[in-house]
């Protein structure tokens, strides 16, 4: 069925209002069921044994003593998850990450697992498993991994994306390149060129809910899995492939999700839980501890970025060139590639080149974290823009406006932009009272811009008209931040009925066709598109039914304000039929009424934001506090503005944590030293100010309501905005994130020393 997804420019009745969310009461009463809240009769407790070594060959694993412990019902190793991936490298990496085979590649890598009658027994059993390791040299640092003599993780890793194929194996797994124009010629035209190296440390999504699942496989090969995830269809696909199950026979039911931010787009312990259940022939519940979440789920990349930008005296960028090295853990990822694509996306550049290098290190496998890879690249680019503006004596805001990409600009990563929001967010920043508010002692103000793509992808929804005329909407994308409210608003809008007449639920994998996961800010964008189409399909049927009830041609029936209306001189004396009346008559007019839709949601609108930030720095300790923060972002159309604000605020808060304190700290031994919320410091309530938001609405031409994804972009600018604020307060350029107190104090002292030497 072809669907017209073009923007209609219609007036909205429901969309843009702020009703209460449907899952609110369950979540404030403790009734909502999250991953660890699911229990099955007879379930066992699963636990995973993890490598204490950053890099080791696994010579042998003796599980006999653990198996002999009373109460232990299954012990598994990689032998119980045999390689069925048939040369599919990506799937093999997922398998190897779920359960190490020949080598443990990081501190926390799973090597065996048990299922026992209770937690105590399971813990005892883990202690009885003897793993014979041959400890190997390791490397955890992204730059050290490509230095001469660095231990090479995989002997068969020859950098892909390079012609001819390198002769020596290395930790550079992949090279990507983007850009256009002639960079050298561009630099030749520049009056000022600045070149710098920036570093950012590895961070974690820090969702408060650890990964949790309950798995049950029957001897007949059918299975059930309950878990917290951002993509249950993807989980089903991966688990079925890894365990050799028919996809249709594994039913995956998503629970409420206690935060994901990209970290729950992947399988970690779920295939292990299924394998344990298969071996024990009992349901198995497996919940990660916080320590395991940090050590063995998927943090973001640590990065090292070389960047060079040239500008004319008048502030026009003539060329930009960047090489971005992103750690991806022990397996190939696409993280540097995304960094390379997003780096210069805010600007209209004639000459631009970016090179991304995926670097393998002995750290957990990198996974998506909200606008993955973009914040680090933006830290580099946006810091440089400020510095260049300072060098030529131009207001950095005006320099950004001068160079901002607009409709028709060829983006640095290839496509030509349609209508976009970078210019408008900058104009809004210029007018914003925050920009001109006075600053206090030891305070500085910074700004930065951010870009993120937004994804579309495979999506389907079912919309059922129930016998009383109320509506159930079943969607296949996970609700991570209020999507059920937004999608119910969209269904209500399209059907012309009140919001509270629609109940939106997330269906399990057996109730809908395949859906891509909730990532790339696609949940509301793509499921709203499918919801609109489902509603339109339902309306077609509703009109047919009304025509049958009236016994008039369907062409003479229109749908308006939640009712079927007869039109034309002959019929317009007929009283409109309400949804409830048509639903009540359904048994006699053809049976249940529903609309469904399956589509690939093309045309996701790109997303831009501008942030303004004030910091106060204690010059004697380097302690930095964000004292005022403003987010300005284009939403296309804010379906539920309150939850759009929530996305803006949440992303900014994560970015602030990243900018100031959050980092993975590895010891010389390659072990993670801060695998807990005490020493991995996400912002607490008293660390932050109120976060002001301004929603701009520049409609996405490829969505009927103009909707763009809004979830991710807000994490992109904060690193640079804070770096620029510190720089504006004290004249020091911070090039290493997090800008922790010791790093800031050191920079201040060095600047003071330099100043005194000059004097």
């Amino acid at each position: 069925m072809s669907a017209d997804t073009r923007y209609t420019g219609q007036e909205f009745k429901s969309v843009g209002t702020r009703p209460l969310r449907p899952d609110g009461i369950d979540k404030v009463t403790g009734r909502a069921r999250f991953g660890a809240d699911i229990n099955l009769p007879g379930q066992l407790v699963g636990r995973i044994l993890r490598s204490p070594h950053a890099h080791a060959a696994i010579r042998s694993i003796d599980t006999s003593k653990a198996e002999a412990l009373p109460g232990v019902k299954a012990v598994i190793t990689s032998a119980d998850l045999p390689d069925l991936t048939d040369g599919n490298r990506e799937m093999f990496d997922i398998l190897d990450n779920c359960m190490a085979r020949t080598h443990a590649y990081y501190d926390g890598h799973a090597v065996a697992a048990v299922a026992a009658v209770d937690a105590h027994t399971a813990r005892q059993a883990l202690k009885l498993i003897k793993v014979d390791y041959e400890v190997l040299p390791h490397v955890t640092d992204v730059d050290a991994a490509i230095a001469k003599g660095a231990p090479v993780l995989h002997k068969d890793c020859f950098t892909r994306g390079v012609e001819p194929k390198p002769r020596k194996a290395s930790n550079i797994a992949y090279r990507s390149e983007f850009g256009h124009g002639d960079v050298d010629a561009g630099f030749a035209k520049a009056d000022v060129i600045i070149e710098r190296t920036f570093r950012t440390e590895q961070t974690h999504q820090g969702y408060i809910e650890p990964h949790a699942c309950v798995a049950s496989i029957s001897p007949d090969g059918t299975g059930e899995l309950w878990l917290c995830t951002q993509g249950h269809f993807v989980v089903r696909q991966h688990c079925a492939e890894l365990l050799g199950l028919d996809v249709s026979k594994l039913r995956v039911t998503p629970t409420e999700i206690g935060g994901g931010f990209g970290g729950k787009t992947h399988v970690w312990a779920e295939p292990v839980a299924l394998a344990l259940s298969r071996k024990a022939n009992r349901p198995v519940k497996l919940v990660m501890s916080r320590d395991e979440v940090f050590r063995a789920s998927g943090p973001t990349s640590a990065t090292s970025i070389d960047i060079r930008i040239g500008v004319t005296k008048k502030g026009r960028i003539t060329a930009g060139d960047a090489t971005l090295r992103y750690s991806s853990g022990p397996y190939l990822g696409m993280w540097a590639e995304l960094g390379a694509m997003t780096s210069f996306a805010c600007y209209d550049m004639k000459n631009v080149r970016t090179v991304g290098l995926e670097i393998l290190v002995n750290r957990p496998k990198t996974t998506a974290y909200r606008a993955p890879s973009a914040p680090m690249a933006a830290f580099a680019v946006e810091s440089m823009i400020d510095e260049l503006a300072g060098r030529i004596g131009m207001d950095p805001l005006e320099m950004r406006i001068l160079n901002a990409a607009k409709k028709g600009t060829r983006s640095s990563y290839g496509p030509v932009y349609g209508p976009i929001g970078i210019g408008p967010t900058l104009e809004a920043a210029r007018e914003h009272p925050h920009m001109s508010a006075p600053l206090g002692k030891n305070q500085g103000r910074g700004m930065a811009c951010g870009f993120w793509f937004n994804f579309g992808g495979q999506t389907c929804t079912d919309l059922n008209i129930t016998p009383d005329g109320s509506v159930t909407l079943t969607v296949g994308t996970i609700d991570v931040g209020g999507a059920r409210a937004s999608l119910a608003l969209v269904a209500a809008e399209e059907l012309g009925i009140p919001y509270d007449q629609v109940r939106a639920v997330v269906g399990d994998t057996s109730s809908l066709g395949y859906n891509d996961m909730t990532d790339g800010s696609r949940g509301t964008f793509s499921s709203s598109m499918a919801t609109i189409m489902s509603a339109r399909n339902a309306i077609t049927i509703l009109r047919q039914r009304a025509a049958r009830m009236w016994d008039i041609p369907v062409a003479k029936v229109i749908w308006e304000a939640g009712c079927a209306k007869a039109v034309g001189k002959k019929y317009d004396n007929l009283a409109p039929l309400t949804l409830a009346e048509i639903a009540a008559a359904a048994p006699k007019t053809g049976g249940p009424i529903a609309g469904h839709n399956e589509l690939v949601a093309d045309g996701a609108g790109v997303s831009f934001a501008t942030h303004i930030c004030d910091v106060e720095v204690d010059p004697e300790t380097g302690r930095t506090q964000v004292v005022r923060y403003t987010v300005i972002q284009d939403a296309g159309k804010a379906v539920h503005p309150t939850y759009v604000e929530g996305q803006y605020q949440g992303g900014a808060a994560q970015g602030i944590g990243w900018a100031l304190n959050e980092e993975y700290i590895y010891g010389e031994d390659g072990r993670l030293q801060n695998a807990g919320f005490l020493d991995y410091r996400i912002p607490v309530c008293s660390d932050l100010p109120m976060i002001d938001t301004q929603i701009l609405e520049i409609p996405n031409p490829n969505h009927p309501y103009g909707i763009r994804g809004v979830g991710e972009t807000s994490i992109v600018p904060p690193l640079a905005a804070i770096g620029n604020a510190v720089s504006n307060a004290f004249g020091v350029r911070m090039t290493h994130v997090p800008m922790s107190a010791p790093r800031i104090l050191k920079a201040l002292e060095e600047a003071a020393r330099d100043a005194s030497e000059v004097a």
Partner: protein
Amino acid sequence: MRYEAPQTTPEAVALLAGTKGKVHILAGGTDLIVRMKGGFVEPDMVLDIKRIKAMHLIRKTKSGLSIGAAVTCGEMGVHKALKKAWPGVVESANLIGSDQIQGRCTITGNLCNASPAADSIPALIAADARALIAGPKGERLLDVGSLPTGPGKNALKKGELVVSIELPPRDARSADAYLRFTPRTEMDIAVVSAAVNLTIDRQGVITAARVALGAVAPTAIRVPAAEKALLGNKLDAATLAAVGEACSAACKPIDDKRGTVEYRTRVAGVLAKRAAQAAWMRAGGKP
């Protein structure tokens, strides 16, 4: 694991002295239960002292104030007489963890766990507090500075437990202050900390001073050189500078995940100066 919750101190001492194996005392549990769950300790017995009524009291004694071993830091924070006499000790206790932690944690536990970064220890050392210890041979008093013997180690002998922390009597124009550096505003562990306890005369001359630092050595340390710099002086710029220098000079920190040698050394001096200023103001000193 045995769980015992005796009603009296003699019962507790008898259980501690008479039980073989690893016995751990449970007060607030904010350290012990974390370590049990992490598998770092596997007690044979946990002895919960919270059913001993006397241990919940903050009371005036002949020689000052006594804080029972089961008094939570949160309770200290709402005790007016204690706050008035020892604002620095109370602020050090109240900086430990969140409100949730405050509802459980105790300064006695903080002292006995003997973390180099413990918040209350420098303040208690500066206050010249003593721990009242009960054991099979009766009671004894020990300077709080002598109780921690190294990271995670204390001077308690088999069968002994701390019953209370004893604070000395307070002279007029005396006050204390405690400051720490943490990356976050709350929910954090001191990277470096400083406590200063001062008495001044009517002219503002310092007549008694104790200065202690945390997280700059295996145990919290006193800084006699800083005390000497304060004694007999007003808190002028030169005195403050001398205090800062003496404190930085006294540091023997390590590089770890929470801070560097360089940073701790430098900021110890900054915090000591600021703590001295705060104590000075509270004691009635004029800026």
